[in-house]
């Protein structure tokens, strides 16, 4: 009981701090880091009931389910084909890369596939834990992915996107000129 209270309190403080400093995946990353530090530095090994993970999974899943309504489904329809191309291609790429990772022996197949699946960090970690994969390893792999995408990728994406926007503006300019 004391273990549970201590661990939940440390996790909550870490999670709130992580959320407050607005780092990608901040609340989960903050809680994970704070509790990992507690676990790694303490002479005793802390444990809490596994049902807490189930509660976390249900909360994450519940919020996703509550975002889906008829309007959302209608907005998906407007981008159905290209959206499906984007989703299916990204998922297939994730499965292929995860499979290669497992075949090369870096991690077991379940951990590799969930660790490199392009789903949300919390969602993939939740699913991985429930299927018996290494939760910390999957979470660590997703931390790297999100950090790479959010921190590093904009350095390349922003200039590319700005060039495309500039080109679009230039294409629209002659049309405006003709009106004059």
């Amino acid at each position, binding site marked *: 009981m004391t273990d549970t209270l201590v661990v939940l309190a440390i996790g909550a403080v870490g999670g709130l701090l992580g959320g407050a400093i607005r780092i990608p995946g901040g609340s989960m990353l903050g809680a994970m880091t704070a509790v990992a530090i507690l676990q790694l530095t303490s002479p005793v090994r802390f444990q*809490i009931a596994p049902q807490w993970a189930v509660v976390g999974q249900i909360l994450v899943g519940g919020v996703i389910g509550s975002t889906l309504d008829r309007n959302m489904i209608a907005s998906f329809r407007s981008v159905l084909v290209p959206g499906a191309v984007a989703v299916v291609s990204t998922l297939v790429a994730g499965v292929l890369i995860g499979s290669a990772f497992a075949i090369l022996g870096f991690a077991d197949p379940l951990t590799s596939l969930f660790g490199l699946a392009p789903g949300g960090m919390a969602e993939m970690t939740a699913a991985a834990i429930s299927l018996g994969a290494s939760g910390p390893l999957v979470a660590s792999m997703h931390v790297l992915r999100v950090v790479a995408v959010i921190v590093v990728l904009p350095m390349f994406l922003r200039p590319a996107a700005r060039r495309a*926007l500039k080109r679009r503006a230039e294409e629209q300019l002659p049309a405006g000129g003709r009106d004059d």
Partner: protein
Amino acid sequence: MRFAIEGEQTGRNLTLLAGAFAGGIAGELLRVPAGAVLGAVLGALAVNLARPGPRLPRGFREGGKILLGTVVGLSFAPELLATVGQLLIPVSVGILLLILAGLGVSLVLHHGFGWDMPTALYASTPGGLSELALTSEEVGARTHVVIAVHTVRVITIVILGPPALTILIGLWPDT
């Protein structure tokens, strides 16, 4: 008046949570792969379709993420840190390939479907939904399209991923 609105929202949240917990617990009891997440998605969705209304506030998801982070943090041990260190380069290569695949998809969306490049780039990048939505707005991408594509991506993988990966693991040579 304000109390009435707050009471309505609280009732709505409790109904959605009841649906999520009923679905999640059923998923766990029925031993569905990743049954808690999947069941909760379907339970809340059922409530939402039966009684449309506002979604659960973001705080619930943050609470779930904090709980998951807490549970994951407890599993850390010195040996695991060493493993994470060893996997840093291979995982980075895997992520780079994932990003390159996303860039390839963005070219298909741009040339094949006429999407503007900022929207195509941000819709096919495998990042976090909220972060991508924010940064995509900054570069003039069509944010609603980016959000729609990423929402479908995450939902698809949450719903189809666990059963599909379980089947794939069953076919794995060493298992």
